[in-house]
């Protein structure tokens, strides 16, 4: 997979390295700012509120 991407990046190795680093950063940014906040809300394991019924959905802590 990575070898395949590497072969398809244009230019000599410095240009390829720069492009690869850019892609990695872009993917990391998407994960960090878009995916992780949503995922965190789904699997939130830290609930500190006492309430009935036991928290699973909206409120929690």
């Amino acid at each position, binding site marked *: *997979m*990575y070898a395949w991407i590497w072969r398809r990046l244009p230019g000599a190795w410095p240009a390829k390295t720069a492009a690869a680093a850019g892609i990695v950063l872009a993917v*990391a940014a998407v*994960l*960090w700012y878009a995916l*992780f906040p949503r*995922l*965190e*809300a789904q699997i*939130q*394991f*830290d*609930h*500190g*509120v*006492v*309430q*009935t*019924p*036991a*928290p699973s959905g*909206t*409120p*929690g*802590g």
Partner: protein
Amino acid sequence: MRTVLRGVGELCITAGLIVMLFVTYELWGTGRYTQGQQDRLQDEMLNGWRAAKVTTEKVKLGEGLAMIRVPRFGKGYHFVVVEGVTRADLRKGPGHYPGTALPGQLGNFVVSGHRTTYSAPFNRLGELDRGDRILIDTRDRQYVYKVTDRKIVKPSATDVAAPVPFHPKRRPTERLITLTTCHPKYSAAERMIIFGELAETLPRVRPAAGK
């Protein structure tokens, strides 16, 4: 065959890296968010306290209500208590259950907070002993509560937040504080509850640098 195996291997390594990044986000990234919100809330609240007092002062949901300090957790330990206990509120800091008593009032001042993630304001609640002080700063006064008890309860035990804990029907005669957080750490299986009662009321010490 070899290409397939290599592809699977690469996917596994990638998945591992993503999980590591997610753990970093949970433990550190969420705390950065809380820190930013706390700084903003603290500025807003302290500015409000400096301004002239309005007779019909009301705390809105999601806004700063008081400052909590616990000397046992160190001199620098302070968090703005937010009004409300929704998920969004608790991401900003410890939250006051709307409808429970305000600091210093007759009844039960109930605050919930994260034990892990989002700056983990109540991370060390388990270290509190009887007699430890919990300081609540408001506009004019500092309320000094002393810890009286610690209990582990089920998440549905809402009567810990009653004006008289465990006696929801009784009328309050004491000024109490109750802190709730999750237990054990990184789990939502139970709740750790810290009970305390008002020991003294002091004029608020106005800090020099606003911290």
